[in-house]
Every structure is written in C-alpha cells, then in structure tokens.
C-alpha cells in the first residue's frame, strides 16, 4: 500500500440556519506518490470542502470525521493545530483559485516566497532567495530576480499563478492540493499553466490533487479521476477509462451534456440532466442522484454499493452493480 494519501469515510458537517449541512458524506480515495488525481464535480458537490478538510482549514464550526486520514504515514486526525501548521506549506501545499486574494498585496513576491521556505526550514535569507529565483525560473517567470521585488498587483493573473506554484514548491512538498487553479485565467494562459503544473509534477515527483469542474482540463492532465456528486465520490477511474466507459449515470450525463467538436451535431439540443442537486441539509438516504436518474429503481433508496467494473475503476451505483451481476451470472 504505497499510498501517499489514504482517506476512508471522510465526513464534513456544517451547522447551518436550516439544519446541519452534510457537505462531505463518506469519501474514500487514495493518492499514490507522484500521481495526479483530479477531483471533478459541479458547484456544491463538496470538492472544495474536501480540500479544506485535508489541509485542516475548515471553518471552526465544521465537524470533520474519518475512519482513516493518513498522509505519508501520519494520522492527520490526531494532529494539533500547531502540528498541522508545520505540515502545511511544508509537506502538503495548496494552490488556490484566485491568485489576487491568495497573495498578500502588502508584501513583495520575494518576501512571500522566502517566508514560505523559512517558516519551515533553517535557511538563510540568501539561500531562500536563491531557491525562490530558481523556482520562479522553473515556473516560467521571466526576469525572476527583479520580480522578487515586485508586489502582486504589478503582475498579471498568469504570472501570479506562476508565483503561487513556485511558492507551493518552496519546501518540496510531497502533495499539492490545487483548488481550481486555472479557472480564473484566460484560455491561452490556462493551457500554459496546466502544462507547467504537469511538467513540474513529473520533475519533482509531487503528487497533486487537482480540483476542478472542467472536464476538458481533467481529460488532458489527470492520471486518475474521481467524480463527486452531492458530497460523495460516485465514480473513480483511470482517466482513459472514465471517458471511454463512464459507468455512473451522473458521469454519463455530465459527459454527454458538453458540446464536443466533431461529436455533437452543431445546433442540436444538448443532453441536459433534468432536475437539480438535492439539498444536503440533514443528509441524504440512499443514492443522491436517484431523483434525476433515468435508471433509478426502488433499491436506490438504500445506500448504493461500491462495485469494481474494471481495473482501478470503482462505481457507486445500484444499476451498475445489477448489470455486472447479470453479466457474471450469464457467463457462468
């Protein structure tokens, strides 16, 4: 079990004015060393909550629980806030969506980069500066030494994101959690940043949990994909398999409602998923997707089983489990 990150039955509950919101309802997933796992889902599915839960950055009122929450052999559940602080930015780093607000506008770029290193390692200012310049150059920032003296508002969105990536790498973390890092960027810049993340990941051997809602991005950068819906992972698969053989009805619906050049006839109606996401207040019994699913049946009111339908391909669905059983029985 060479998993860098091992999560079993992760739950996050938030008290709300209408009742308790079950934002994350029993997540199971693993991340291997050096692997790129994409966590994909639409708004409200709990993917951001998951990243905050892993980093220990949930709002104070939130309640996190898990059967297993291990990172590099360390049980995250038992760590004090101080110990989590030592871990964050050091062995586990995070890249956020909005580079304008995640970089402190009052400090120079160099100051923030060096602080990221010196907070965790006994480096001198000169050593920190050298590493900062090195990483900025690797991140494709031109004139790196001069950039150290600039403030975030003097940089474009793409450059700021490169700075964020460099900052995340300062302490050579084994895991980076990237929460929609390219969503706010222009399409051409996005492509460059994604390419950069991929290259750096291969070079430094860092594992990445890449959170996004964009299935196009997922297809191009992921090694494995976990599809989230209403606080749960409904399907996990290697990227090729997910797109070739999507098994969960939600994944299928999601993939078929995106217009794809060459596949969707222009001007035709898109295959939209009917209905809306159910409320997560006070939890959901059974399958959260069943009121929108064409294949729903009575058994879906019970918690759907997890079935394997291929190597590393796991689906949480009653219909899929039935279909597999039937195929198995018919071949016997």
């Amino acid at each position, binding site marked *: 079990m060479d998993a860098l990150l091992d999560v079993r039955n992760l739950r996050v509950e938030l008290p709300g004015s209408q009742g308790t919101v079950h934002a994350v309802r029993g997540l199971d997933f693993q991340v291997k060393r050096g692997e790129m796992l994409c966590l994909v889902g*639409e708004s409200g599915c709990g993917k951001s909550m998951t990243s905050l839960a892993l980093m220990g950055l949930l709002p104070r009122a939130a309640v996190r629980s898990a059967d297993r929450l291990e990172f590099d052999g360390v049980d995250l559940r038992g760590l004090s806030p101080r110990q989590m602080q030592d871990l964050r930015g050091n062995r586990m780093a995070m890249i956020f969506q909005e580079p304008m607000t995640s970089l402190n506008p009052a400090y120079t770029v160099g100051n923030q980069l060096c602080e990221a290193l010196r907070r965790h390692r006994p480096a001198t200012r000169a050593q920190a500066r050298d590493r900062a310049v090195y990483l900025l150059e690797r991140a494709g920032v031109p004139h790196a030494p001069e950039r150290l003296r600039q403030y975030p508002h003097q940089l474009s969105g793409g450059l700021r994101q490169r700075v964020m990536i460099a900052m995340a790498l300062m302490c050579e973390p084994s895991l980076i959690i990237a929460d929609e890092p390219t969503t706010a960027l222009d399409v051409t810049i996005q492509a460059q940043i994604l390419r950069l993340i991929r290259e750096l990941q291969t070079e430094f051997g860092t594992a990445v949990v890449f959170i996004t809602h964009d299935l196009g991005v997922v297809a191009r950068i992921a090694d494995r994909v976990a599809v989230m819906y209403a606080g749960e992972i409904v399907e996990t698969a290697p990227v090729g398999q997910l*797109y070739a053989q999507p098994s969960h009805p939600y994944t299928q619906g999601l993939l078929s409602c995106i217009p794809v050049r060459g596949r969707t006839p222009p001007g035709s109606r898109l295959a939209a998923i009917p209905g809306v996401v159910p409320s997560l207040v006070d939890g959901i019994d059974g399958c959260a997707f069943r009121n929108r699913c064409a294949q729903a049946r009575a058994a879906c009111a019970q918690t759907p089983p997890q079935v394997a339908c291929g190597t590393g391909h796991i689906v949480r669905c009653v219909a899929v489990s039935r279909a597999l059983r039937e195929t198995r029985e018919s071949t016997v």
Partner: protein
Amino acid sequence: MTEAQDVVLELRSVSRHYPLKRGLFREPGLIKAVDDVSLRLYRGETLGLVGESGCGKSTLARMLLGLLAPTSGSVLLDGRKVDAQSRLALARRIQPIFQDPYSSLNPRKTVAQIVGLPLYLHGVGAPAERRKTVAAMLELVGLPPRMHDRYPGQLSGGQRQRVAIARALILRPSIVVCDEPTSALDVSVQAQILNLLLDLKAEMGLTYLFISHDLGVVEHLVDRVAVMRQGRIVELESRERLFAAPAHPYTRMLLASALTPEPGLGIPDITKEITA
C-alpha cells in the same frame, strides 16, 4: 449568406478610446478598448464573438446596446443610427443577457417585478394584462408559478439566468446580445440554458450575438465567428471554415488552447502556435 439578407445591425469603423493620464508633463496616452471595428449582423443568424479578457468584446456589446457611445464610427440598427433613436425604441429591438446571474437581477425585487419591468417602462397593457404576459413568459423559460414571488437571493444561478432571459425577451426584441450567458454556470445547467436559448431562437425568430470565451459552446451554437483581440477583429469567418482551418495565428492559438474532453491528447504547447 447572400447579400440579399437583411442586415439588422451594423458597426461601421467603431472605436472606443479612453484617455490615459500619464502625469503632469507627458502627453496623455490612449487605451483603445475597441479599435476600428466593422461588423454586420444578419437577420436570423447567430454570430459568435470570441476573445480573451480585455479584448473589448464587452465594450463592443455595450455600444451595440446603446449603453455606451463610440468615440468614432457609427452603430446602425435596421439601417438607422443608434444615437438618433430613442432609448425606448432601441430597447424594443435589442436586449442583453449578462454573464453574472448574481448582479444582473435587482436583489430587492421579486421575479415577477423584474420580468414585468420592461412592460411597465414601455407602458404596455394594463396591470392585469401585464401579469398574464409575465406569467406566460416565465412559463416559456421554464420557471413554475411558485417562483414568481421569490427574490433573486432564493434562486440558483440557472434559475436567475432564466429570469434574465425572460426579462430580455418579454418585449419580443429581434436581436439579443448574449454576453457570456453560461460562463458562470455549472456544465449541466449550462446545457439546459443553451437548449433554452436554441428553442427560443427558433420559436421567436431571434438573432443572436453570442459572446463567449468557450470555444466548444461557440462552435455548437453559431453560424459565423468573429475573433477579437486587443480591440480589433482579427478574423471573421463562417463556423465551419474557422474551426477547420483558422487563418490568423491568434485564432490558431485560441483553438489550440481549447481543451476538449478527450484524454490522451495531453496539453498543447501554445508557444509553438505563436511562432508557427
């Protein structure tokens, strides 16, 4: 696309410049948000306008709607200059749908009040009639009656966009300027809204100017595409030709950056496109 087709909207050498003060002693600079753009919109078509942030597409849209005056050039609606027409007359011909479903609806008004506003402003019908027209329009966009007295804060993004669409169409305009109408929505909701826009176009005989940065969506909806960069239109072509064989290097770069959901193709190296 023959010349005999109606030109419903035309831009002739339209520019929008902003002076940039550069200190006390230097000449003021110029920001050319829109730079000498000429464009024709034909009746019944969907014209796509693509470009990245800062390219001027939103400024262009505002000039089309009469919300912003060009610094030079003219905007013609049905052959007549836009600034010669009254605000109300313009409103009956061309309407917008904006990107942000949160800021495009007044948070202090109910859905029914928002959709009924155009009728009220234009003095169309008695209050009882207006209520019926509003109800019919809301049904057309897929909002059930129980939503009518809700406030925007109680609606989801997709529902708000439906309200915005209902408001835009209740006066039966012929041209709708859609400024990134689905960019802020989830993919599954986007599909619903795009379907709605297609249905309404067919049913009401509309002409769309569809602004977006999402090339997949644009290719699905439009007849022709205009590519905008730094205030200028760099390429204007039919959909088939643009996507099959883009001529301008910037268009090629844009198309290369569009990540289709096809695994195994990796991430394209844009820098190669720039030099190509």
